[in-house]
């Protein structure tokens, strides 16, 4: 961990202004690092701020969203201090995003090839022939036959659309790729293909990926480190290995338990045919957050202090191991951290 992080998000707080002067705090004090070439997973239930995190970093929040504090450093430059036109130069050139649901992210009345070319021409000065050549290159990279570049999105299958989105994302050779639930709405076979493709491309091009998902299996397979989010805050953050094998936060523990695990069901002592664990309730509404720990109303370990004071992140890694494993829970006895 001696190299400089590619992206480092620090104390990011984002609010949405709702009707009736209400304010929903969608993100609070979110911090994490993305190293070059690394894959980091953002996990959590729906409405926990995963997508908002991506949109805040790219500064693509809807009109009622505001980043109220924090910093987003990309290669050491704070993106939040840039003017809009400067930010536009960073988008796609440095960081690209694959949206949730490729169908909607593609313009239905423009040919796929032209949409990819659009991204290229917005950033790189080149003539149309050169751009066309690049489009062919990209399509080949994601395994779409060249002949289909002249087709419209509705003529593509779901998996191909997602691959076209990936091709578009790679158009300007970004060093950072955000993938916002890239596999939702795809069937399992295609999901595997798309993830395989992402991995392959990452290996080939050496880009860093921020993967938003609620599929923990995907995280286990793809990610180097994991940020578990709950109610707009970081609940647990550490290397994928540590978070998986020694989950510290009750939320992470329950989340992991609520996914089927092949190893667990074959263990005779645990008893096969056991029901999967569930977490009762739903994530808090962001304009009516509970006092104290946001998970406390649903937490089976909740004690009095949990409903009063919000816990800070503490480091649970073995001291001296050099690794970091942060979790925010009152019941943990970790090392206080200065700053991430």
């Amino acid at each position, binding site marked *: 961990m001696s190299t400089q992080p590619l992206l480092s998000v620090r104390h990011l707080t984002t609010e949405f202004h709702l009707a009736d002067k209400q304010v929903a705090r969608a993100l609070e004090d979110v911090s994490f690092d993305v190293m070059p070439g690394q894959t980091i997973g953002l996990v959590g239930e729906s409405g926990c701020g995963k997508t908002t995190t991506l949109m805040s970093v*790219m500064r*693509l929040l809807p*009109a009622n969203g505001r980043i109220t504090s924090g910093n987003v450093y990309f290669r050491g430059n704070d993106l939040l201090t840039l003017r809009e*036109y400067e930010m*536009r*130069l*960073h*988008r*796609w*050139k440095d960081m*690209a*995003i694959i*949206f949730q*649901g490729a169908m*909607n*992210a*593609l*313009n*239905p*009345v*423009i040919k796929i090839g032209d949409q990819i070319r*659009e*991204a290229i021409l*917005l*950033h790189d000065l080149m003539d149309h022939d050169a751009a066309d050549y690049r489009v062919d290159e990209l399509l080949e990279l994601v395994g779409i036959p060249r002949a289909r570049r*002249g087709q*419209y*999105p*509705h*003529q593509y299958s779901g998996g191909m659309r997602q691959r076209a989105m990936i091709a*578009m994302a790679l*158009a300007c050779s970004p060093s950072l790729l955000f993938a916002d639930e890239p596999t939702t709405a795809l069937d399992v076979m295609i999901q595997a293909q798309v993830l395989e493709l992402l991995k392959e491309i990452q290996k080939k091009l050496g880009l860093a990926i921020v993967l938003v998902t609620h599929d923990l299996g995907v995280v286990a397979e793809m990610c180097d480190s994991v940020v578990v989010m709950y109610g707009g805050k970081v609940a647990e953050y550490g290397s994928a290995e540590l978070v998986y094998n020694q989950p510290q936060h009750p939320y992470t523990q329950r989340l992991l338990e609520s996914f089927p695990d092949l190893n667990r069901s074959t263990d005779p002592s645990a008893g096969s045919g056991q029901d999967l664990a569930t977490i009762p309730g739903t994530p808090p509404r962001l304009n009516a957050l509970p006092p104290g720990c946001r998970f406390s109303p649903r937490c089976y370990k909740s004690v009095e202090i949990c409903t009063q004071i919000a816990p800070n992140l503490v480091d649970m890694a073995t001291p001296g191991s050099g690794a970091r494993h942060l979790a925010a829970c009152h019941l943990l006895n970790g090392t206080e951290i200065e700053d991430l």
Partner: protein
Amino acid sequence: MNENWTLFMRNLRDFWRAFRRNKLGLLGGFLVLTAIIVAVCAPLLTPYAPTDVIRDANGRGMTFAPPSVHGPLGTDDAGRDIWSQLVYGARISLTVGFLAGFIAMFVGSLLGTLAGYFGGRVDNLLMRITDVLLVIPDLPLMLVLVATLRQMDLHISPLAVLIAVIGLLYWTSTARLIRSQVLTIKERQFVDRARAIGAGHAHIVRKHILPQIMPLIVANTVLVLSIAILVESGLAFLGLGDPTKPSWGTMLNFAFDRSAVANGAWWFYLPPGFAIVWVTLGCVLLGNVLEEMLNPRLTAHHLEGDQNMIAIPKQRVE
């Protein structure tokens, strides 16, 4: 480029195939087209110039002569041929109507797009202006405006004043229509995606929003044209036309001024009236049919597949 051209031609062919089946649309197209052809070919269709006085054997002007071999539609109070006036009047009426209609469309589309796309304060301001224009009675406002502008000695032709006033007052409904459509398109995710790839507002509007509202603009233009022609006729009838360049409205004005009704000269006032109905009816029929074909909200077509939202209805599945 070539590929786009063939695609365009194919779309055009598909469009024609669907259009051909619609009898009302065909009728509307016919009415509008004949009017345009008559206006363009005016000198070929008229035996006299509109200002020529037809004289009898004694060299006296034939005033209020009924339709005869001398003039297919008779003559007016000064012995001038009505048919010639009608044909040349088409030029004036259509020119004023078309130019004013296009100005209205342009202003309406521009303001509607701005209001819909930027929203917030811009939207609020533009829509309040629209509201104000909508509640002011058009006719008195136009009368005052045209009369005032005439008085100001601006060295602009009276027709240009008419065009400007009509064009700058009749964009409100268009603006609202375009705004509502832009509002829905703006929320689609591909607009977010366009922002994410680093596109600016101009690029997004040009590449992603305008192509989607273009069909709506085309259909609406035809409807606005008919309104512009009607309004022009109304103003000209009230004496605000250019007497040296008589439109159909001006002809009606002359007819009433020179007591054509009292003289029983129906051939003086009926033809311009019919001509106005001919063109406006044509525009309305054509506009309605185009709107039906191009506006996704009015067709059941978009329920079949979400992709061809604005494409021209077609049965072909690729």
